[in-house]
Structures are given as C-alpha cells and as structure tokens.
C-alpha cells in the first residue's frame, strides 16, 4: 500500500500479511483493511489489474495505490 493509502495499513507499514477466510475476494480484503468503497484506488493482484470479485489464494500479492495525475 502506497502513498495516501498507506494510512490503511495495519501498522502504517508495508508490506504486511493479511489473513482472510477461505473464499476471500479482493473486495473482502479491501473491507478487512477498512478502505471505503468510494475511495479512488488502483488495485493490482500479482501485478495485473484486479476487480473486486477476483478470488484470492494463499500467497497472492495485492498492491494498492491512489490514482496519480502523472509521472
């Protein structure tokens, strides 16, 4: 979790491990982290764009950052 979304990391640090129930999705991970649905964000699952309904498996890497105006 980067930039302004880092505030939602449990200890304010990253990377960290997140334990979720079997059958968890990207959406349930975001809920567990307390990130409001309306907060604009880019979500990557193992380096690819993720959608809320994507299933998560053991060892998956989830990356979150706010949209950026340019680089």
């Amino acid at each position: 979790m980067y930039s302004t979304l880092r505030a939602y990391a449990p200890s304010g640090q990253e990377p960290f491990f997140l334990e979720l129930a079997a059958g968890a999705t990207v959406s349930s991970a975001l809920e567990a982290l307390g990130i409001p649905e309306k907060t604009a964000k880019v979500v990557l699952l193992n380096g690819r764009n993720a959608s809320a309904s994507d299933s998560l498996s053991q060892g998956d890497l989830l990356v979150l950052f706010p949209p950026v105006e340019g680089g």
Partner: protein
Amino acid sequence: MKGWHGRLLRVELSEGRIWEEELKEEVARDFIGGRGVGIHYLLKEADPKGDPFCGKNPLIMMAGPLTGTGAPTGARYMVTTLSPLTGALTCSNSGGMFPAELRRAGWDGIIFTGKGSHPVYLWVDGSKAELRDATELWGKNTHQTEQTLRSQTHAQAKVACIGPAGERLVRFASIMNDKDRAAGRSGVGAVMGSKNLKAVVVRGKGKIPLHDPDGFKELNARLLKKFNETYKDAPPPLRLHGTAVTVMATQNYGVFPTRNFQSGIFPGWEAIHGETLSKRFLVSHKACFACPISCGRVTRVSEPPFEGEGEGPEYETVYALGSNCGVDNLAAVTKANYLCNELGMDTISMGSAIACAMEMAERGILSEKEVGRHLAFGDAEALVELTRMTGLREGFGDLLAEGSLRLATRYGHPELAMVSKGQDFAGYEPRGEQGMGLAYATSPIGASHMRGDPAYFELLGVPCNVDPLSWKDKPPVVAKWQDLFCIIDSAGLCVFFSVRNLVRPELMAPPVGIMELLNAATGAGYTLEELERAGERIFNAERMFLAKAGFSRKQDTLPPRMLREPLPEGPGKGMVCHLEEMLTDYYRVRGWTQEGIPTNQKLKELGLM
C-alpha cells in the same frame, strides 16, 4: 479577439531586427495556441529536410490562450523547431513562471530566425523588446545566467536560457526557465545555442483580455472547489511525493525500465522512489503559475561527494539516471539531475545515453580506454562524472553528447539505443505496456510519453484501468489521447491537472472542461466536436510535416529488443510489443494510408489542404 493577444514577436537574429506580427484570428481558432500554432508556423516557414542548426530553422516559443490567465495550471508554453536529436520536428513543453510572464507582457509567442554574429539575449519589457550583448554570459550555467540577467534587467524578470550544453550543441540540450523548469527534450537548447541566443528575459504586468471575465472567474472557482473536495482527506500524491511517486506503479506492473531496458523490474526501486526522496532530501514542494497540485521538488543533498541543491528529481529522471543505469543511489541521481539543470540538458536522454554506454561496456563493445574509465551498470560516481563531461563535451562526454543512437551507431550497434525516431524512451517499458509502445512509435517527436500518455489508463488509474498487456483495444484509445494532448498542449495547460479535472472521466476522454475554459477566455464558441477536431488537426499537421521530411511507417518503429526479445520477468514475462498489429489498426483509425501518410480526404476534412 479575446484570450489571445493576437500579437507575436518576430526576431531575426542575423539582422538584429525585431518586429510585431499579427496572430490571425482564424489561425488561433483552428490551432488553439502553443503546440498548434507552433506547428502551423513550422509548416509555413521551415524546410522539413533542413539542417536544425541552420539559421533558417525557426525557434518558436508559443504560449496558449489560457497561459497566464489564472486558469488552473495555465502556466505552459511550447518550443517548436527542427530537432538536432531526431532530425524531425519537435515540440518541447515547460511551465514555471516564464510563460505566464510572456503573456502578461502582451505577447502570445516569439519566433526566432537567423543566427546572431555574437552571443545575445532578448529583453522583453512589456511591449518593448531589444537584443542585448551576452558575450559575458557565454559559458555561465543556467543558474548563474538567470541571476546575472535579473541584475541587468529587473529583479522580478523571468528568464529562459541555455547553459554550457546548449552552447556546445549537445544534441539533447534543454532550454531552462525559472532556474529548474525545462523545455527538456529533443535538443531545443542546442538550436537556441546554434543561434547564439543565450536567453530570453521577460517582464510583464499587464492583464490578459478575457471574453467573459466573470464567467471565467466562476468557472475557475468551481474547478478549484472540486479539486479541493477530491483531496479533502489526503493531498494529491504528486504534491506529497512528486512525480517520482509513479515508481510504485511502474515497478509493480513490471515496467520500470532497468539496465537499458533489459528488464522492467529494478531490485533497488525503493531507494529511488518518490516517498524515499521525501524522507531524505525534500525541502519543500513547489508550484508553477496558478497550479493547485504543486508537484515540483525543492531538494538538498548534504552527503559527500554528491552535495548540492536545486529541484528534482522527477519520475523520468529517477528512471533515466537511476534504474535504467542500474543506480540505486538517490544522492547520485539527484546530483546528476542538478548538473543536467545547471548545464542545461534533458535528464531522459542523458540517462539513456549513459545506460546505452554501460551496456556496450559490459558487452565488450566499448573499451575502458575509449571511455577513459571502467564503466558498468550501477556505478553512481561514473553517472555523475559522465553527466558533467557531457554538458561540457569533455573526453568521452563528447560522444555521449551526440545522444544514444549516434553513440551506439558509431560502435556498430544501433540496436542498443532505446529510441524511436532517435528520441530516447521515457520511463515505461513497451513490452509490458503495449499502448505505450504504440504511443512511442507514433509520437511526432519520437519516443515521448507526453504526446498522448497511455500510462494514465494503463497504469495510473485515470480515468480507469485498461490491461497494459492487451494490444488489440489500444489503437483507437491511443489516437484519442494523442489528440487530447494536442488540445492540452495548445491551450497552455498542464496535463497533470487536465486529465483528471478538465476531461470527462471516460476512456475516450472528452475535453469538456477545457472547452468551457477556452470559450470563457476567448469567446471562440468551440463545440466539443470542434475542439476535438482541432486536436486531430494539430496531430495531423505534425504528421504532414513528418511526411514532408520523408518519414513514414518505416520510422514508426521500436528497437528489436522491444519487438523480438521477450520481457524476461514480471507480470509481462514472455511479452514482446505487438507494434505491427497495432500500427495497422492505428493507421486505419487515423484515416491514414498503411504507410502512415494522412490521406488527402483526411487533410481536406481537417482543413489542412
């Protein structure tokens, strides 16, 4: 005519003659300003096959109708000319305070032709303009030049100038303004140097006439209110950490160019990330004229041997001088950035040339004797020293100053230069970001990310996310964003604000907010269709110029590494850039022949013939 002054300053340097020329209303309306008016004049006055260092090559500095008006990020101008790096047209953009000051002095732009018999600078004090001797300034760096010129003119004057690199015709020399802002790419500073023109100094306190001043003011207030609401909980990432915050995106997508584009994953990325820059060297953030984002970085490095202070590094710089050279020493990257600013050079092409040399050295193509030192990826001291030597054309720096393509060609390996049309790649790996590959190959100035940046929708979530590895869906979107950037660059706005705040959040990016601003400022009464057509007209006018210079599909290409060597690791592992498939569809979308030439029907439709 409102919004535009309708006034251009013409300066013939060989004769020392200055006069005023009308910017005709129909030209202003059809080409908007900035980049658009620039290509209009280049088409009219330049020889497409001419020598960039010939006096006949016009150096066109053009602001937009929103520059200096107070419209959010209306701070920018475009420098249009023939590029000594690519041999084709270029346009190079900058913000800061200088462009707004030029407009407040009552001018929409300045066109220089000819060559001074000795070094000169142009002093524009409101409606008065004169050429002054600059012999004493020749050899001074950009910071010294700016300071001296203010003492010779006015304490609050704004300066655009070249440094020693521009004087020595380094092929990627920049024009620096307000100390550390750069019209960086393609060697516009070398063209200025070839004209013996050291600087342009401007003082202007006038008002820009607006069509509907009250409506314009209300519109700006509404835009700023919306912007502040978007960021009420947390400031924009660009203000917090600068453009180098983008490293988090490119690294995680596996498109952060590393060791001359041999990989898209850089193990030392966290050391050069924008967040690290904030922790280690940031003094303050800094905004251009009328900008609510404030992405500029004022920094200071106290660590020997890389001490210094100035502005930067931006994302493109931490890629070019950092990951692409395998350097994870942020102090060294920042120091090399300071040197580029002071000597007046593009950090992207500088890093690309050094990375190319590093790969050639590691492959045994370049010997230690030729370089004058051992050279390998990751060598932070070599990075800084070679940057200095390039700006002064000392030793091996004289070869680096020719740019990566000429360097690699000299040693028989042009395929090791990561360029398109001779222009060095920006900080995005085209195999892992297919739309960027198409944008690099078809950009009128060569491999620029700022002539229709697909990173917004491929990586940065603006306005949505499209898979960076897909290619079949990219041609119409890339074409649309190229036209959009023509509008932004011509209006005098900054892309960073425009794409999120002045464009309806749809993939095909209708520029409704820009239309409203332009209409309130100018009274031109653009419809959305007319404005989008103007963007397409400008892009096609640039393409016409390229066609006249002999460019076609053959030049719309990428190095073999991108087309034939699969990406070795990361999310895009195994991918090559599917350029040929995209090009065929892209030309069809554009209404061009399959050789990449605009058809007569398309040109007639756009009023270009």
